[in-house]
């Protein structure tokens, strides 16, 4: 293992985060806070409780997931896309590092940032709504697994994308809709039966549901299934990344 290389990339990525603190931490925190104010405090106070949970508290896990997914994908994709764009990737390709080490470093950095962001948003939410966490460790596990999985997904997008437009289109056109339709703002049981079935094809449903269970011990889908689905998705992303490095897809001609 080339630990110095892993550290070098990791620190490089963290330094990039530090340079863009406004955009990488402040702006997601601000936009989530707006959701808490509007849906949590203002509208939430007029809503009935779902499964015995206050509406404001009900949406907390989903909103954290929303930020986590968008930020993981956009941060990891940007992290690997930027050196490709400037050509600085040559150094990573020419260095005595394995694919695994490169992925560990890039995805590790992106996931670290997402976890920190998730915790900050969680703390911010406290200012607006009252919630409790029934299983803090499980909650943290979901947070970490989701961050890692979607950072991997972002890494793939960053390699696949040929330009900055494509880079932004996935978080905007795929992640955000899937999260909104993934039970962030409602319980799936509130949908007509047909749409309930359709929803089960949305991977984000499992994330939000499992995450919410860690908070309130109530969910649409059993927590074991949620966990399994994240692991499946993690495994798929990992396989794709390994295939990318094996074939040199878009990295090496």
């Amino acid at each position, binding site marked *: 293992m*080339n630990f110095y*290389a892993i550290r070098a990339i990791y620190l490089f990525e963290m330094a990039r985060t530090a340079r863009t603190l406004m955009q990488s931490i402040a702006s997601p925190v601000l936009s989530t806070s707006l959701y808490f104010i509007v849906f949590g405090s203002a509208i939430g106070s007029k809503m009935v409780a779902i499964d015995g949970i206050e509406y404001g508290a009900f949406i907390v896990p989903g909103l954290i997931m929303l930020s986590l997914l968008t930020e993981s994908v956009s941060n990891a994709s940007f992290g690997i896309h930027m050196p490709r764009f400037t050509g600085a990737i040559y150094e990573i390709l020419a260095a*005595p590092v394995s694919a695994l080490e490169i992925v560990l470093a890039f995805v590790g950095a992106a996931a670290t940032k997402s976890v920190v962001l998730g915790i900050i948003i969680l703390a911010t939410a406290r200012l607006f709504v009252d919630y409790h966490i029934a299983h803090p460790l499980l909650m943290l596990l979901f947070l970490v697994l989701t961050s890692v999985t979607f950072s991997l997904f972002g890494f793939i997008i960053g390699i696949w994308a040929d330009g900055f437009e494509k880079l932004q289109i996935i978080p905007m056109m795929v992640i955000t809709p899937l999260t909104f339709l993934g039970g962030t703002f409602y319980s799936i049981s509130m949908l007509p039966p047909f749409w309930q079935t359709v929803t089960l094809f949305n991977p984000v449903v499992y994330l939000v549901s499992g995450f919410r269970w860690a908070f309130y011990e109530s969910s649409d889908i059993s927590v074991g299934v949620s966990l399994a689905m994240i692991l499946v998705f993690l495994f798929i992303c990992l396989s794709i990344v390994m295939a990318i490095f094996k074939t040199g897809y878009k990295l090496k*001609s």
Partner: protein
Amino acid sequence: MTIALSINGLSKKYKPDFQALSKVSLEIKQGEIFALLGPNGAGKTTLISIVCGIVNPSEGEIRVNNCDIQKDYRKARQQIGLVPQELSLSMFESVWATVNFSRGMYGKPRDDKYLEDLLRKLSLWEKKDSRIMALSGGMKRRVLIAKALSHQPDILFLDEPTAGVDVELRQEMWAMIRELRDTGVTVILTTHYIDEAEEMADRIGIINKGKIVLVNEKQALMKKLGSKQLSLELSTAIPSIPSSLANYKLELLDDGHKLTYTFNSQDEHNQIPALLKSLEEQGIEFKDLHTSQSSLEDIFVSLVGGAK
């Protein structure tokens, strides 16, 4: 004689269908400066990129100090430093951060003393905290060199190291490259400046359209292919070359004021005395004469031009 780098039957086909290298074989000796010359698009960068692991080869075998670059990639790559042709740098980083990054990438622990010396030698120490985007083009190129040397490689590739670099800095770089060679580093450089190859290289390889056209010691190359020219400034212009001088390789220039005779400097039996005698017989007088030896540039143009 140790072979630092051996390339055997290397071919590269870019997608969809472009043969950039065909069956290139080359051996670089340890501790030499090898210059790779060739016109734009000849395949120089492709060749270097494959050795460094940035581009996949289509076929062929490459060994760096006997380590296969694919099977034994870690060992092979640790020994290599690369200065790329393009100024490919992450612009927001500081100089100090980026050389530390490079050293780390090659699996070496921090060594502030070594990196400080390196930056000083490249006159970058004062700029160590500057962001790369705030540097001039020549400074950026020096940063690339610093990055390539940050892990103390045994083999250094320089892909057009002096492109866009001013004369003074060029001299400094040459001195530095020689110094590196003296410490045992093998240097492989590509260049479009023939004087650079002429000045620096121990051996020269010429590549054209993906094929190695020639590899030779610089001295031998210049001797073997070097033709000389004798130029005569005539006292009075002549309208044409007299037919009695037709079997000499003569050319009439400057509206008949200048006569040049081309001969091979290796040829012991050149015809200068005979030519001068014939001129005298013809009553052609000259007021000045000088000889010049062809440079690598002429050799290069004649080789590459001939292959077209």
